């Protein structure tokens, strides 16, 4: 795995989410646009707030959090 040279700015997080049929609920958690009661989960089953969303990795839309421990798992796979 590599980190893509194409990144996104935090100001456009919601625009990117929209491309994936996602939005945020009142508490700023990422949710399915078609069912805002369904929060998007990380592969470890954690809910993700917009602020702590790092991005996407391969998998069925695997959403990743931006904390050190989540990124450490990714870093171990980066070539």
């Amino acid at each position, binding site marked *: 795995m590599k980190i893509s*040279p194409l990144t996104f700015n935090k100001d456009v997080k919601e625009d990117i989410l929209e491309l994936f049929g996602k939005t945020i609920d009142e508490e700023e958690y990422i949710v399915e646009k078609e069912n805002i009661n369904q929060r998007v989960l990380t592969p470890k089953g954690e809910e993700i707030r917009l602020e702590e969303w790092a991005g996407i990795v391969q998998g069925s839309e695997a959403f990743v959090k931006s904390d050190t421990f989540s990124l*450490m798992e990714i870093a171990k796979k980066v070539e």
Partner: protein
Amino acid sequence: MKLFDKLKTLFEGKFGDIFTNNIIKFFDFSKNTTQVLELKDGQRLSLDVSKGTEEDKKKAKELIDFIVQEEKDAFFTDKSAEKTQQIKRNLPLKNDEELLKFYRDKLKPDMLRAIEGSLVVKNAWTKGEDISELKRDIACKYPNFGNNVCNLVTGGYFENYFKELYENMFEQEDFSILDYQEEVERIVKSLPYMVFINRHKSYEEFSGEVKFKLDKLKKYGTEKFKLHGLGKDNVEKALKIIEEYKEDNSVVIEKYINPSKTIITAIFRF
């Protein structure tokens, strides 16, 4: 570059003139002034999907799918991409791996994970990098002990002190790994009001340090202070310090020494 080719294939029809520029070095999704695709600072090709048609959005989604599913790359915010690279270059290697291996079957998974994260912090700190965010994450994830583990790892305590503690406890007849786990946890949590007696400083130096810390703790009202020592010499050093307070009515001292007199914990209450 495959990414550039993909971008070109998707958007050339509409923004062909941008791709004739050969000095594009960076790509991002960010807010643009008017266009879906803009060249910023002459080098950064920026995509703003909010300014695009449904067709442009489909193309942007196709581009991200290409990155993630075909190239198998991580598609991250600029900040998270940078943070992942920082973590990557500071991941535990060689000696750090040995250290983790030693504790793998001895400590609870949460404690081990906090140590692993703290090793990343230590390595970054050694290189003079900014560690504030990494350290904050560890403290947030493990509010009871994360910050203290970080300080103890940076101070090298897991390389020596806690290994020595294990060896000393292991020699005891009634040793159980649970006792060791609890003792490590107790010590880690006590860090703000703890002094470790070791061989690197003299009795006089520790005596002064204990006095200084006690005065400070009395002033700020934590009502508790701990001394911890490993090895016969350090147990003796600790006992000598405790002796200094036997006439002091403002302090009550409880001391715990193992049967072979190689581990001492003294709790000063005031």
